[in-house]
């Protein structure tokens, strides 16, 4: 892992994810600038803008629903829209309505795999709580492309299935309780100058 060289953080969450991701946002200090993109499984009937409004209470960055061709900007949190897959291209987002992956749309695998292709070693992937196995293949791709793989400790996650599947699928760089993930990300992204750290 290299400190300070990360352009994007992708986060996947399912059951219990809203609570977990809110807590993660609470931990990130204001000078943490790397953009964050979240794929959270949710109902397609969810109230328009509801998730973004809730998350906005936990951060001073701009929380936005990611749109097709929307540029990826620092100090922004992007949320995958319900019933669309969110994909990453270099510098911008893309959407698709292709079939569900792991029964999910948005699928965490789709977000992570496309982000790994676009950002390679400049990407951090974080898998949080969830009751299915979406995100495991995606995190493995993040790791294979040279990025950093972080997983919430299944023992303290609200649902262990998703983080455990991610741990089984790849050799994670860090398996951490939720309340330590923010500091770990901050250390990776904000401790200057860029240097190699041992893992």
């Amino acid at each position, binding site marked *: 892992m290299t400190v300070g060289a990360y352009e994007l953080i992708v986060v996947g969450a399912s059951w219990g994810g809203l609570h977990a991701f809110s807590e993660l946002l609470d931990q990130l200090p204001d000078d943490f600038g790397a953009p964050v993109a979240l794929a959270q499984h949710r109902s397609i009937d969810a109230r*328009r803008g509801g998730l973004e409004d809730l998350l906005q209470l936990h951060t001073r960055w701009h929380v936005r629903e990611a*749109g*097709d*061709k929307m540029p990826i900007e620092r100090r922004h949190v992007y949320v995958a*829209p319900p019933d*669309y*897959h969110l*994909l*990453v*291209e270099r510098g911008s987002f*893309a*959407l*698709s*309505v*292709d*079939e569900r992956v792991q029964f999910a749309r948005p699928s965490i695998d*789709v977000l992570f*795999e*496309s982000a790994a*292709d*676009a950002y390679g070693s400049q990407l951090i992937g974080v898998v949080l709580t969830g009751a299915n196995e979406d995100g495991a293949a995606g995190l493995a791709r993040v790791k294979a*492309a040279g990025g950093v793989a972080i997983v919430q400790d299944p023992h303290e996650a609200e649902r262990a299935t998703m983080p455990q599947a991610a741990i089984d699928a790849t050799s994670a760089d860090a398996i951490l309780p939720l309340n330590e993930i923010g500091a770990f990300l901050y250390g990776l992204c904000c401790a200057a100058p860029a240097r190699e750290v041992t893992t």
Partner: protein
Amino acid sequence: MAAPEARNGSPAPAREDVEPLETELLLEAINRRYGYDFREYAAASLKRRLWRRIHAEGLESVSGLQEKVLHDPACMERLLRDLSINVTSMFRDPSFYLAFREEVVPLLHTYPFTRIWNAGCSTGEEVYSIAILLQEEGLYERTRIYATDINEAVLETARAGVFPLDKMQDYTQNYIRAGGKRAFSEYYVAAYDGARFQRSLTDNVVFAQHNLVSDRSFNEFNVIICRNVMIYFDRSLQDRVHRLFYESLAMFGILALGHKEAINFTPHASAYEAIDPHEKLYRKVA
């Protein structure tokens, strides 16, 4: 034995690094051999669809797919299906159809005859949804719907009007929330191969092959519906298709896009006013 090295002394790049080049060559080959131009499709979703086909064919690389596609037209047919099918459902986004009923139908009642273009209709779920809506609103008899797609095979599916029975429960829910006025089951009969929709729903529908990438406008329309098709295109192709739609719409004609497709920042944005910005219903005013 040492691994072969490239001329500059560094090892040959990993397979991953040559994939963009392989993809470029594949798309060029498809265009020259078959005349389908996918070179301006959005890279990330195109890549997923290509790899789905690569795995399904038992291949291991984009180059492998290129070789097979060039020599085997049936493989091209399968790839075309992967690249052109847009997964959709009847009355997808019920709120859109509700808005169409409430805000577009009254406008259409002022016209003696309405031409509607459903561009990129895929397997036809949207066409049948629109036809049902227009029947219930007393407009169908004076409407012609042009349903087009790049892929002749999916048009065959659309013409047949047979959809999986196991979807009918979801579609019924959508139909009700879309403001449906009858029992959804009145529109189809359960057959051995699925739910067969009433033939009368296609009496005023023309199914035709049309390629948004390369074909020109073929009529003037009062309504163009193109939902979740252009998200698969890159920016410059999106701009060209927007130009095609602008040129194909009559003055005060309606353009309907997918929920996450905005008209802002497209070349003709200022020529439209939003009828319903959330449902992405626009009206050509200049």
